[in-house]
């Protein structure tokens, strides 16, 4: 059965292409949420095996989304991978990411083989 991935990023083009790449092998089913304020609701509804979460988003940033997921006992266990194009490492360590205690941060542009390995590790195929 395909593993379910929730992809939260305001960049519609990026999410569309990442979805195509992940779904191509048939190993994943990807749901896109471009509006970060709806991310938690989408997680509740979709029950993903992993969440890919952008950091800088309008409305609600990745750190806030992560904090809300953590606060919800039903969603707190879902592994989250932060994806970010932030270039300054201090922004990452001082910012939302560190506070939210995310398991993994991957830089954008995304190295696809690396992302697949990470997903295999945090959300292994049944």
């Amino acid at each position, binding site marked *: 059965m395909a593993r379910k991935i929730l992809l939260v990023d305001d960049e519609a083009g990026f999410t569309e292409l990442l979805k195509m790449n992940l779904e191509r092998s048939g190993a994943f089913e990807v749901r896109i949420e471009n509006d970060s304020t709806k991310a938690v609701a989408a997680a509740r509804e979709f029950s993903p095996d992993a969440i890919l979460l952008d950091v800088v988003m309008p409305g609600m*940033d990745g750190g806030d989304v992560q904090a809300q997921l953590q606060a919800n006992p039903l969603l707190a266990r879902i592994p989250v991978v932060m994806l970010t*194009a932030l270039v300054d490492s201090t922004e990452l360590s001082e910012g939302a990411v560190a506070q939210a205690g995310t398991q993994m941060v991957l830089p954008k542009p995304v190295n696809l083989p690396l992302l697949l390995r990470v997903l295999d590790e945090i959300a292994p195929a049944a």
Partner: protein
Amino acid sequence: MEKLSIVESVLDNLPVAVFAKDATNDFRFILWNKKQEEVTTIRAEKAVGKNDYDLFSQESADYFRSVDKAVIKRGSLMKVPEEIIETKNGREVHLRTVKIPVHDEETGRLLVVGISEDITEQVKSREQLERLNRHLVQANQELQYTQMQLIQAEKLESIGRLAAGVAHEVKNPLALLLLGVDYLSQGIVPDDPNLEKILQQMRGAVERADRIVRGLVDFSSQRSLSREPTQLSRVVDEVLLLVKHELTRSNTKVNVRMEKDLPHVFLDMSKFEQVLINLIINAVHAVHAMGGVESRLIKIRARSESLEEVVKNQGARKREVFRSGDRVVILEIIDNGHGIAPADVNRLFDPFFTTKATGVGTGLGLSVARRIVELHGGELTLENRSKEPGAVARLILPTKLETSKVRTLTGRVKVGSPPKEIDTGATELTS
């Protein structure tokens, strides 16, 4: 006899030098008054009976002789606006001379009568004035050059602040491109419905990255001030692209409303972007300090008004900048942040005045922004909103190039040598 002494007395007390030469006798002097003695430092008894070649250098005498001959030939008065004679002790005397041909009926002689006014002091003050003016022009050029350097320095500072955000905005399309490449490199299936979409996205990503990089390069360029008719909405779009990251990160919404068919304004895009970036970043800081993520809002408004309306709305002092009947464009950047503290109101535009933490700003931003707006013939003010919390930055921009002011300036500096072309392009500088 008495009659003659009266004439001599008058001649000797005239404030001008008077002399007469006998053209029929080798131009020998027959009259030489007191003032002429003073000017030439030659006594009358030494001069009368001699000619120019006996008294002056060969070169001067040649010159005097040629003028005298011309006066005789013409048979009418001749004015020499400025001539220089060198006295025996080496002093240069500047004279304004009138030479008149006179036919002495009693003796039948042909005379050249000269009347010279000593204008040495006038010439000296004129030269002094020219020299001072040249210094003034040079100092003005240096000041303009320094101002341009200051503007550029402040711009580099804001580029530094924007760089991380711009890199982020470029990385997003790069991420998209890489995903496209990843997809395509896994093999191309001819009927794959995704292919067209992917290529379209990749093309869009390249264009987007190109646009933002080009925007930053244009913004960074150090050129002299060059103003072109520009649509204000275009500048606002470019600027919002450059500050997009700062807006997103601080969760600040921007609402842009610009009047339809706004007249063009004469802008130097790169320098004017610097003003808007500065004002928007200031507004971002102001709303950010307020908390309340939901409501952080910057409104950008533009409208066009006639000067009468401006005067009515903004106070009469605008009259100094704009002429009656001028059509102006008013651009406002309105935030709902903490506003301006009463103590700071009069210092906002002072160089190095800042309310931000060390390292966040140099305190030059607003003073440079105002200078840039003034170089555009416009005005920048900053005040608290009247009814709601927050501040409004208001730019009033002319819709015409202020040609008359340029003319006044060049007219003023023209006294000396003509002003050299200055590459600071500050011909519009009117202060």
